[in-house]
């Protein structure tokens, strides 16, 4: 990962080798440390924007200092020291400026940074979990929670998030600024909710991390999910989410990839994929996370979805898809968290076991006119039932509803094939 915030500016070619080394060191530190440093710098006064600015300045200083002075033994501590000194300077000057009574509200105090004085840069605490709960706080607009996580924990630039979400970059930047201002001004605390509040506070965090995967099927989303699970320790649904994202990404190379559970579920014929193209290492990793999740007495939504992915991945080992296992899992998913996606998927799986007519009967109960997976599944079941005249328009409708041009092309091919 390369957080955009640490990408180097134009630099002197003569010092290229040293600069390159410094740059690589900065990137290495950034991967693990960016979110940790932002969380630590922002927590005392809740000021994420200021923390990010201070850290960006520290990275900038590193890229000019390290090529000559060499990379420090503890680069993370070096960055923290530079960033916190900068924060303290800003706060001192801010305290001088805000003497007029009606502007005094902005003065939450340079004292807020006193805790840094006692901080040992060699033993940097990890407050990222608090930061994740801030990003997905119920007082923050649900649509901006995932972008906030991508920016503050992973160092993504607003423009990159805007591209992934197909939102104008300026609008995305403004919404991020507004959210950070609310976090600071309404004083949303950087804390991990206690046991009593956890059942209410955890689901939006899991949802937002899952959102990172849904908008940008990248390794960073997987890193975020695994980080969340590791920081929470023994939270089954967090491990379920880590497993779900990891197992889903193991098939990333396949063009006909579809996200589990949600929109697109059960649409892409996984059974046509070649398991040899899947990432065996990631499958093993995902399965180990799922094993950690399965200590829970009652599996949650993410564990069930991860288990569904694990069943599909298992075809790489057994050479066959265990449809009855999928039916049990989708039935359970429909019981605990029914969604259009899970109901359509259950109809598709039933069609594989009991024949296309049984699947179509289940699908008739769903009747979701504008839901692409509904039409894609219906088309597939009709084609399997030999009802070509009905299958053709269903493929056409599914293709028209597809966001992904590759999926639409695939469906058009199918449409022609049943003609």
């Amino acid at each position, binding site marked *: 990962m390369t957080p955009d915030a640490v990408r180097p500016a134009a630099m002197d070619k003569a010092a290229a080798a040293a600069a390159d080394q410094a740059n690589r060191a900065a990137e290495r530190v950034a991967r693990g440390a960016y979110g940790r440093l932002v969380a630590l710098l922002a927590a005392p006064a809740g000021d994420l924007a200021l923390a990010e600015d201070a850290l960006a300045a520290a990275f900038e200083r590193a890229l000019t200092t390290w090529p000559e002075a060499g990379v420090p033994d503890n680069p993370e501590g070096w960055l923290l020291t530079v960033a916190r000194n900068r924060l303290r300077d800003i706060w001192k000057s801010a305290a001088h400026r805000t003497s007029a*009574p*009606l502007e*005094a*509200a*902005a*003065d*939450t*105090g340079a004292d807020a940074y006193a805790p840094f004085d006692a901080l040992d840069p060699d033993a940097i605490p990890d407050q990222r979990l608090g930061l994740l709960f801030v990003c997905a*706080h*119920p*007082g923050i607009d649900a649509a901006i929670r995932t972008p906030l996580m991508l920016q503050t924990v992973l160092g993504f630039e607003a423009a990159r998030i805007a591209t992934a979400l197909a939102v104008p970059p300026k609008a995305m930047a403004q919404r991020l600024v507004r959210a950070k201002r609310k976090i600071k*001004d*309404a*004083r*949303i*605390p950087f*804390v991990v*909710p206690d046991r009593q*509040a956890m059942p209410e506070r955890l689901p939006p965090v899991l949802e937002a991390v899952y959102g990172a995967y849904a908008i940008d099927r990248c390794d960073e989303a997987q890193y975020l999910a695994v980080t969340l699970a590791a920081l929470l320790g023994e939270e089954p649904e967090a491990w379920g989410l880590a497993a779900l994202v990891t197992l889903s990404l193991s098939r990333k190379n396949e063009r006909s990839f579809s996200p589990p559970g949600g929109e697109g579920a059960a649409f892409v014929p996984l059974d046509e994929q070649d398991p040899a193209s899947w990432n065996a290492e990631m499958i093993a990793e995902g399965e180990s996370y799922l094993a950690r999740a399965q200590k829970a007495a009652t599996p949650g939504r993410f564990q069930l979805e991860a288990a569904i992915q694990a069943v599909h991945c298992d075809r790489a080992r057994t050479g066959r898809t265990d449809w009855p296992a999928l039916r049990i899992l989708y039935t359970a998913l429909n019981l605990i968290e029914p969604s259009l996606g899970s109901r359509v998927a259950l109809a598709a799986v039933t069609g594989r076991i009991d024949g296309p007519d049984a699947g179509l009967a289940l699908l008739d109960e769903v009747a979701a006119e504008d839901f692409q997976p509904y039409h894609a599944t219906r088309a597939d079941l009709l084609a399997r039932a030999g009802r070509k005249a009905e299958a053709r328009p269903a493929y056409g409708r599914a293709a028209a509803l597809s966001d992904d041009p590759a999926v639409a092309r695939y469906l058009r091919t199918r449409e022609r094939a049943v003609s």
Partner: protein
Amino acid sequence: MRYTLLLHYAEMSPSELGEEMLAEGRRAFASYASTLHQAGVLVSGEVLQPSANSTTVTTVDGQVKIQDGPYADTKEQLGGTFVIDVPDLDAAIGYAKQAPPVAWGTVEIRPGAVHVVDGTWHPNK
């Protein structure tokens, strides 16, 4: 940090509510105020008269205009306020959840900016 809890709900007349409901509402507000007071977070609290008794003052074309009625003529009206002083938004949410109007209306949590103490402005800390 000071937060003002703004209580918004549909207005009902005493006859619509009935004596029993009124008494229950009074009990709920008394118990809520006592909870806030005992926790040491209550700065002030006030339940307002019906918005029909409101008068608004505004300037139209340079002329001060005085008018009968509330600022916004909506079904739900501001019915009361509590000002609390708590460490952060989570604490404020915790007390807002216990406010009686949560059951029949909406409680808005608005952080304070500055407030007057003994005639001078103080920042919200």
